[in-house]
């Protein structure tokens, strides 16, 4: 229950931040858009091959006790 409240609180906070303080989204970025060509290279993608990374998470979750927080790698599935 505490986790639910915390997450709902975080959601409310982010919504508030985005709507009431829209100027925050206009903060001058210290990495300019024209400086992001390396970050936009496909080899920097957080999840370059989703079909493959999802399968590897599946393999590990079936054989290890730990699970979750795989993030953009395609894991963190809603199951066992």
């Amino acid at each position, binding site marked *: 229950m505490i986790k639910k409240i915390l997450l709902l609180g975080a959601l409310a906070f982010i919504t508030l931040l985005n709507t009431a303080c829209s100027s925050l989204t206009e903060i*001058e970025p210290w990495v300019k858009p024209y400086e992001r060509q390396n*970050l936009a290279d496909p080899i920097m993608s957080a999840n370059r091959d989703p079909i493959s990374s999802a399968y590897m998470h599946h393999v590990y*979750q079936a054989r290890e*006790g*730990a*699970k979750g927080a*795989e993030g*953009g790698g395609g894991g963190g599935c809603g*199951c066992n």
Partner: protein
Amino acid sequence: MIKQLSCLSLLTLSLNLSAAVLPEDRADVMYHSYDGGGVTIDGPSLLVRKDFASTVSVSGNYYVDNVSSASIDVETSGASKYTEERTEYSVTADYLYDKAILSAGYTSSDENDYEAETVYFGISQDFFGDLTTVTLGYAVGDDTVMQNGNDNLQEDVDRQNYRFGISQIATPNLMLNFNYEAITEEGYLNNPYRSYRYIDPSNSANYLSATEVYPDTRTTDAAAFGGKYFLPYRAVVSANYRYFTDDWDIDAHTLTLGYTHPLKGGWILDFTYRYYQQESAYFYSDLHEFAAVDEKDFRARDKELSEFTTQTLGFGVSYEFQLGNSDTFDKSSINLQYDFIQFDYDNFRDIRGDEAIGEEPLYDFDADVIRLFFSVWY
């Protein structure tokens, strides 16, 4: 039953941690294979994604596990080698609105003694000149556990996932990310086919077996921190560390290192190393002293709940090329990825020999994991 294999991980493919842009239109068809510890699992997977009006992206996935098992668990329980099949379908939809992506998905997994359904919702929002991306996710799962040969067993598992993620552009060459996920599970968390062993009270040189007894709730927490760095000669190094803990007293550490190296002519090489170590659940023992006295006296001998280490060495090669007319297809690639996984158990023994009880050799095995897939972007 492939209890743990009823994973519905493809739901989260729609999570985009880099910026408020929809995922690319692409299709992937893959053959996957796992071979280790007496278990072979293979099958196809097909993933297709397409956007509409540049604001909605829809994906669908079809996935099959064909399992053939004569694992140490099967052998020591006296069962014979078996085969089974699991089929999974997923659909997801992502809606782009300004700097946010709203996501939803549904997955259904079906096998003859286990059914699972999961619904997923998520939101991803960019902040601070698109340098920061925050994601929140919630998933709810409803599983039904059955047992072949026992029509009376039909139990439920309810599962809820809460996710939080943040991705941060730190420099023109460095991307950092943090992810947290809590999972609560309630219901029949046992594997109905699995037994624990305990010392025979009438003959201490012998042991007896009984069906495992698990708690009916489990709460897990996992937090991961990582980064990717673009090297000056167009290559990428990455690192990720995850800490996991749960109320069954399993603590686990995962460290993953990666290196990606493109070559001329469309070739890309990938190397990974992964180290994983976990402590036992508090009710795990390789050899229990007594039988459980009631349904709250938990007993397990599932090696996934024991103390062990895994190490993975991975290698991938990818070749990009132009398929047909460039007006129809942007690019395509063929990919082969191979992982060698070594499992070393610290308190799970191989009881297939004739050694005295409690003095059997510790168990270990190796696994080969292959993914061969073809991708096309359009």
